[in-house]
């Protein structure tokens, strides 16, 4: 479980996170949703300590993470898998080397074992023949999937995904969503997914936090989100052409 307690973060005079308190359950896919520029990525970076918070604290299974030194953080970070919004693959390494990299750094696996692990992770994201390619030779969606494979290679206890399905077609997107949910349950991870894709929300949203104006504006799950009376959330959820048409049809009957 990961908890944030009263965290604040400003950039200059932009108060991006205002007294945010939120807890993310273990073994569940926790979603952070909200419009672009509302502070989702900033919240994620505060949770993992890439951005220093101004006040408040972040707890990992009860341990105060935000007061740790860089050295102490390393211990917890080795249990974190992170999917960055842009993939952040190491572009001088091949796909396989990217996945093997954290394993070489922190485990004593043999070369053969590491390769097997890489193949396993790649097969989970449906990319079995990409081992020898360089990141520059991949499509945007393939990069995302390799990044997921790298994130899960170390068997993390905590999985962070910043928009895992932006730039993916609906089918691949669904495969990725289901993969995240499956892995979360299988390994009992604490998973936090940032998204503004309503399909993923309805697919895998077990705990959903809607962030608006730097605050947690609403929390619920994939069922209660459809019956919400919260004005801002309604605007966010029901803006797509598809949902509007669907609602109009329902109202007609």
């Amino acid at each position, binding site marked *: 479980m990961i908890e944030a307690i009263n965290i604040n973060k400003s950039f200059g005079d932009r108060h991006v996170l205002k007294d945010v308190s939120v807890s993310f359950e273990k073994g569940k896919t926790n979603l952070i949703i909200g419009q672009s520029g509302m502070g989702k990525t900033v919240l994620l970076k505060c949770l993992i300590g890439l951005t220093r918070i101004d006040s408040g604290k972040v707890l990992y299974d009860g341990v105060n993470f935000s007061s740790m030194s860089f050295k102490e*953080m390393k211990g917890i970070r080795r249990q*974190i898998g*992170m999917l960055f919004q842009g993939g*952040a693959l*190491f*572009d001088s390494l091949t796909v396989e080397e990217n996945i093997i990299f954290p394993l070489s*750094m*922190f485990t004593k696996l043999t070369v053969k074992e590491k390769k097997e692990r890489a193949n396993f992770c790649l097969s989970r994201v449906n990319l079995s023949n990409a081992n020898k390619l360089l990141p520059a030779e991949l499509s945007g969606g393939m990069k995302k999937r390799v990044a997921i494979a790298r994130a899960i290679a170390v068997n993390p206890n905590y999985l962070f995904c910043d928009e895992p399905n932006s730039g993916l077609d609906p089918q691949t997107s669904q495969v990725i969503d289901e993969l995240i949910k499956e892995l979360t349950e299988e390994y009992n991870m604490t998973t936090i997914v940032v998204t503004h894709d309503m399909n993923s929300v309805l697919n895998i949203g077990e705990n959903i936090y809607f962030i608006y104006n730097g605050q947690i504006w609403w929390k619920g799950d994939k069922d209660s989100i459809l019956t919400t009376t919260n004005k801002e959330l309604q605007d966010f959820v029901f803006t797509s052409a598809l949902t509007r048409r669907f609602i109009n049809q329902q109202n007609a009957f």
Partner: protein
Amino acid sequence: MKALYHVGRYFLLMKHTFQRPENQSVYFRQILVEFENLGIASIGIVALISVFMGAVLVIQMAFNLDNPMVPPWAIGYAAKQSIVLEFSPTIISLILAGKVGSRIASEIGTMRVTEQIDALEIMGISPATYLILPKIIAAMVVNPLLIIMSMILAMGGGWLGGSLTNLVPTSEFVLGIQSFYKTYDIVYALIKTVVFAFLITSISSYNGFYTKGGALEVGAASTKGVVFSSVAIILSNLVLTQLLLV
């Protein structure tokens, strides 16, 4: 004020850089990669410049010292001294600052703006140590080798230049090269080279590491890396010359 801020942040970065590696064998492999990137890849340009500069140096000296008071072997001797003391360690280091410095700053800068540095940090790896330390070590080992190669090639170029133009006969040139040999000259040159290698790699890494923004800023960081490491070389050259020769 701004300069002070950069100096402070530079030293802090160096403090983070010189830390115990998470995994020795991964770092060792990384040092080998940097030998290739920073050393082997520079052999061509260093060789080319050394041979031609050596030749021009000897031809110039022979023309300008065309005086019965100056024996021909003195040209060989003077050429050797300028090559060993200044041309190879300082000028070639400046060339390397341009080649290696821009490479390092843009490599690390790109990794910063594409969040690869954040990715390292999240894995529990110290990005400063992993990215910078192998480069510093590799350059401090490989640059002296490049400089020794440069000395030999520059003297070879000088011999070619002098003998092909019939300005300095081979026997006289060789006599000049051999006269007043001092090991300390070589030691002095290599000390300078090692210090310059440290300055080039650490300063250009610093400029890359704190890049903010996108591709445009990476370009700017790369330019700054070259300019600041060149300035550092020039200034420290003066200081080192005072310290080591006087």
